Structures are given as C-alpha cells and as structure tokens.
C-alpha cells in the first residue's frame, strides 16, 4: 500500500498511522490529566493532511517551468 495516492493526497496508510499517533496523544493526555485531550496531536495530524493536500493542489495549478536565466545560473550568489 503506497504512502499516498498519485495525486499526492495522503493515502490510507498515512491516515492510519496519523490516527494511531493521535490515539497515542489522547492516551498520554488522559494519563497525565492534560486538557484539552489530544489537542497537540490532533491539530498536527489535521495540519499535516490539510497543508499537504492544499500545497499539492496549488502546486499542480501554479507551478511553471523555470527559465534558465532565472534559475540562478551564472548569478553571483
């Protein structure tokens, strides 16, 4: 099973692993009595998925080939 689909959308394996990580975060928070439960892990998992999907989508829409003169070739860095 691949980590993501061909379009770059996170695949099932990624989602399962992230869900497991969120579950672990919830368990830790419950164990130490932290509130809100699972906030850090949940926001991170949601953020990874939503940012990756958004970036990949925008990349497909907005990416263009770079003219050689703009690639930095010959520029003094």
């Amino acid at each position: 099973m691949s980590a993501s689909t061909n379009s770059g959308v996170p695949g099932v394996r990624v989602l399962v692993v992230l869900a497991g990580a969120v579950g672990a975060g919830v368990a830790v928070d419950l164990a130490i009595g932290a509130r809100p439960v699972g906030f850090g892990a949940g926001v991170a998992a949601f953020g990874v998925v939503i940012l990756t999907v958004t970036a990949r989508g925008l990349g497909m829409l907005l990416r263009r080939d770079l003219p050689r003169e703009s690639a930095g070739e010959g520029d003094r860095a």
Partner: protein
Amino acid sequence: MPEQSLSLLAHPSIPLLVAALLVAIVPRRAASVALVAAPLVTLGLVAAGRGNVSADLHLYGVTLWPLRLDDLAAVFAGAFAVAVLLANVFGLATSTRLERAAGLVTAAAAIGVAVAGDLVMLFVWWEVKAVASTVLVLAANSERAAGAALRYLYLHLIGGALLLGGITWHLAETGTSTFVALDITPATAMIAAGFLVAAAAVPLHGWLPDAYPAATFTGTVLLSAFTTKAAVYALARGFAGVEFLVWVGVAMSLYGVVFAMLQDDLRRLLSYHIVSQVGFMVAAIGVGTTLAVNGAAAHAAAHIIYKGLLLMGVGAVIHSTGRRSASQLGSLAKVLPWVLVLYLIGAASISGVPLLSGFVSKELTIHALDDSDRLVAVVLLKIAAVGTLLSTLGKLPYATWIAPPQTGERVPVLRRPAASMYVAMTIAAAVCIVVGLVPGLLWDQLPYAQSYSPYYSGKVVETLQLLGVAGLGFWLLRRQLAPHPGVVLDVDWLAARTPALAAPAFRALDGAASRWSRTATSAGAWFAARHSSRPAWTTRPTWWVGTVIVLASAAAMIGSVWR
C-alpha cells in the same frame, strides 16, 4: 513622554551611518573593524538611553521627537543592532563595499524608525530604509537582482506614498504628528496600509519572496531582519488592538507556510516563512493586550535571530556549492556537517521546539490569543506551526543534506564556508539556546512586565505531541514533499508585469520632468548602470525621475500642510 534627557548625538543610528561612510572609503581590514564595532556601539547607546527621549524640535510649527527610546522602541532597536552585527560578521569574508554600506544604512534606518517619536521622522527613516534596502538587493549585480530591486522599490514607493498621504492627512486633522496609539480614521487607515505593505501582509507580500532571494546571501540575511520587523514595530505602536489585524496575521501565517512548502529555491522557501512568522506577530498586535504586544515584540526579536541563522545556513550552502535550489542539492551532511547542525538549531527554533527561543516567543504569542478567547485563531496558528516544521525542519534540510541529489550526480563543493560564517552562525545558535533555556532574559527586554512561562507539563506535552506527529507526517510524506524544479506563481506575477503596465505613464512623466531633473536623472542612471550587469528597468531615467517626483511631491505636501 519619558524624561527628556537624551542628546541627539546619542541617536543609535549615528554609529551605523558613520560606519557606512567608513566602509565605503577605508581599506577592507579597517572596514571590518567598523563593521563589528559600530553595531556594538549602537547596542550600547540603546541600552544606555533606554527609558529616555531627546528634547523636542519645532519645525514650521510642528513638534518633532527625533529620539524616543522607550521600552517598545528599545527592544526592536536592540534586536536590529544584534542582527546587523551578526550579518556583518557573517559577510566579513565575502561582502562587497556596496553591500556593507547599504546594509549599515538599512540597519540605521530601521533603528531610526524604531526610535522616531513622531510620524514625520518615522517617514524620513522609512524612505531611507526603502532606498538603502533596494541598493542591498541591487548589490547582487545580476539581471535577476536588478528586476527584483525595481519591483521592491516600486511597491515600497507605493507603500511610502500611502504612508505620507496618511501622515499629512492625520497632521491636518489633529495638528500633531506624535506617534502614539492611533484611532482608526481614513487618514490613519492609510498609514496602516503603508505599514502593511512593508509587513508583507497578504496579498501585498509579493515583493518579499521576489526580492530577498535575489540579493547576495549576506544581503538576504540583512534584509530579513529589518523591513518587516520595522513594520511590526510600527503596527504595535500605532494599531495594537485593531481586530482586523488578527485575521490578517492568521491569513499571513497560513499563506506563508503553504507557499513555502511549494518552493525549490532555498531562500525563497525561507522568505515565505518570514511572511508566515510575521503573521504570528501581526495577529498578536491585533489582540492588543499588554501580553499580546509583549508576544509580538518577543517573537520579532527571536525571529530576527533564528531567521538570520537559517538564512546564514543556506547562505553557507550557496557559498560552498554555487547552487540555490533544493532540487539541485543533496547528501551534503558529510561535507557540511556543522552547517547542518547550526541550521537545525535555527529550524528547531522557528518550529517551536522546547528549550529554544522560538518556542518561548511563539507560545507567549499564542497564549495571548488564547487568553483573549480566540480559539479559532489559536488552532489556525498551530496548523501554521505544523507547516513551519514540515518545510524548515523537514523538507529543506532533508533535501539539502540528507537525501541523495535528484540529479543523480554528486554535488560539488567549490569552497568551504569562511571561519567568520561559522562564528556568526554559532553566536546566533547560542542566542537561540540561551533564550530558550532562560526566557527571562528576553522577558526583561519586553515593554510590559509579565510572569508567563511556557514550561509547564501540559504545554510541553502538547507541543511535543504536535511536533512529534508533524515530524511523523513529514517522514511518511517526504517523497510527496520533495522539491520540484520550477517557479510557483504568486501575486509577484502581477508585480512583475506592473512596470510594463505603468510604462506609458512613466514615459510621460520622464518627458515632462527631464527639463528640471537632468542632474538627478543622470546620477540615477549612472548608479543603476554601475550596479547592474546589463541595462534593465533600473537604468531607465523614468524610474529615477519618478522617484524624484514622489519625493518632491512629498515635500510640497508637507510644506502645504505646515503653512
């Protein structure tokens, strides 16, 4: 106003301006001494003068406060002095006279903005900063830099015109130009718009990822410290508590990280993160409580150092390999290991890893939003923090140092980073660690007293969860997040075409103005030709005549109001 005890000779910009003059004329070795000594003297003047102002000046019936070193001004002025010190040390072996002088003038102007007690003095320093930082971009001496510098100047002239219009209108309405918290009126809205252009607020941000990567690698380190943070200072001083800014800041933080994830050019990626991190500061300013203004100031100061460190790290890579795109790099961990270690300290700091400066300043900022019951904004800023980790601590170092080159060829190392580069990066990394370990050192510099500490179990566990899951996500998706060659269109597409759209108007202005401004035109054209590899837009007299007209109009407007 605090006690009026400062002499104008104690203005902290003066040592930097003197040093700018010196580096332009004295031998390189002596200039190196001035490059290091001047920021230290400036830092001393800021520390010694803190809490005081100069005597007021009266000009055409308007009261000016050229020097106001209250706590808010001092934290920004001090951070600017440290930034120019680090950048100067970093560039000791490589920077040109023009870069050095332009960098010092830019820093002096940014400090001038921070310590200006009235809007007229602020505007003067604001425009000096715009012109000096344009020269800093031009100093890369390439066609790309010439184009980017022109667009940078163009947008900052627009921002400057908004600022000037707002100031003169405000002055006419109120009769005072003293720069304090401003009520929102049409005039002050124009002033805020001028500040937001310089803060790179979306969608006015296109100049930043366009111009910063076009400068030399030392120039980028300098540029990253001043323009946006001077705007953050100005917003904090004048517009704290304006709710609109909360959402401007949240939009900046998310927009910046999404576009950063798409970038291949190392410095363009980090430039988008400037937009994102400034978004945190702008959001805090929008909250406007003393805790939130403290958060914005703390995050600005911390950001100046860790962003400088990140840009120095990629600058050392560019210096060593001659390559600036992540897709052209790879497997550099064995040949540039210490650059990787130092870069990672900066990347961990911007990502908010505990025990580093970015953690304490970011958590203070977010705590201020949480404290004012803005849960949606807090969640969105946390998502932006996830994006920061994905690209600065994940994508960029993985593609540059860890993963094999996409080209399949070994990346040649043409030269090693100079010792001065390692010294500057080490100092910056040390500051990140010390501030992270002892946040009280930073809290003591902030405008308002506070006792917040992010080091309690719930916050640390939440942060570690966020960072751990985001890191796991990066590892699972690292191939999808790998850099792709090419450019990603943004609003800079429009900016890049604006000169062509505006060309007829400027040609008309050129013709009308050439009779009375031949001297300025010739000087401007000579300067642009001298510092451009081939004639470009900047070599055309139209732009320089346009600049002269804007400045002359500014003088006329101020004069008419004062009469």
